[in-house]
């Protein structure tokens, strides 16, 4: 196996770690610097705490990114892999520099995978629970997601409110997935 290829695989493994980690562990890992008292990592920890905060929108954003990136990367990767190598070679032989091959050939052909990745990540983030609970702090109007709000409603015995929110979440997810399939089909028809 070529070193560059091995490196790519290792990088992907780390990337997908975010997906396989229990989200509470992820949240704990990202907020741990805030609790660090001493040791060589304290400066870095202080910097990280500045970015994350213990309870902040920025912290939640970074944690969500780590947790949800694999959902976006996987379909995008498949989209790029599906492009026949001969088509890329033909583009180079047609005088297209690498950046123009990316812009005129790779991106349009991988577009269904790119859109699917973005919408899946969006839909998954909508229902985010563990990461928000550990990092976001569920601040109303700032870091509270629908999933946390549903949990809070159930805790307060407001089952009707929880049901309305669940239905909203379901509708939003369906809409997101519907857009994905619609865009994928449209691009599919463009190639036919």
């Amino acid at each position, binding site marked *: 196996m070529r070193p560059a290829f091995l490196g790519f695989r290792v990088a992907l493994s780390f990337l997908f770690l975010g997906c396989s980690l229990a989200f509470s562990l992820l949240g704990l890992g990202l907020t741990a610097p805030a609790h660090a008292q001493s040791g060589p990592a304290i400066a870095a920890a202080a910097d990280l705490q500045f970015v994350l905060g213990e309870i902040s929108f920025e912290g939640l954003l970074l944690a969500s990114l780590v947790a949800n990136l694999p959902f976006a990367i996987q379909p995008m990767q498949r989209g790029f892999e599906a492009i026949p190598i*001969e*088509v890329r070679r033909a583009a180079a*032989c*047609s005088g297209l520099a690498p950046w123009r091959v990316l812009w*005129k050939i790779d991106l349009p052909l991988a577009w269904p995978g790119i859109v699917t990745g973005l919408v899946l990540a969006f839909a998954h983030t909508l229902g985010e629970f563990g990461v928000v609970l550990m990092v976001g702090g569920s601040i109303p109007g700032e870091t509270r997601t629908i999933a946390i709000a549903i949990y809070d409603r159930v805790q307060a015995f407001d089952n009707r409110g929880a049901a309305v929110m669940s239905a909203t979440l379901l509708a939003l997810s369906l809409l997101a997935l519907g857009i994905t399939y619609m865009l994928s089909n449209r691009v599919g028809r463009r*190639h036919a």
Partner: protein
Amino acid sequence: MLEGSGLSVQLRQAGPIPLAVEFDCGEGEMLALIGPSGAGKTTILRTIAGLYRPQLGHIQCGQEVWLDTATSVDLPPYRRRAGMVFQSYALFPHMTALANVTAALGHRPPRERKARARKLLRLVNIEGLEERKPAALSGGQQQRVAVARALARDPAVLLLDEPFSAVDRHQRRRLQRELQDLRTQLKIPILLVTHDLDEAAALADRLCVIDRGETLQTGRAADLLAAPANDRVRNALDLSGESS
């Protein structure tokens, strides 16, 4: 061959694909690289296009050196003026026939590109199909678009990798006639990769016999058939059963 005209190729490599190649192709000449499947013909074509880098080699087209491993010269494919027709045609599936050809006209001013692309499609007898995507074209039509795209960048050499292998016999004869007509308008070296001796003899000025990455003999078809250099040439051309 006079230095500075046509294409000159020398390649050497022990592995993973062994290469011991040496040939020239003059302006307006068609040279057929002929040999059995797996002989390395396509690798040679890809090396000329810049898609494969051998351990040792020198490729010169006209006054331009495209590859010289001794002086670490290795132009990327997009800077070599080599028009290539792939065996699978490799058309851009999301673009129309016209857009496929226009994509290879990046070196021309934008206002000229459409007109030039239409002219090239007329040259290869694709009229009225400019707005079709490759999936809506027949094998023969795709081949013609691929040839037009290869010519679009005003190449200094035309590389044809088994261009008639994906069409039926009737289409093949028609496309071969069209290629012969096209040749009269092109004053550049043309390399045709094929494993079909009849096709090579009918279309090319000279044949270059290749086996296991090695050029065995180069010459006119009649001369090669009359006097193959050795048994390897005879086997590569599948002449073993015929009297010489």
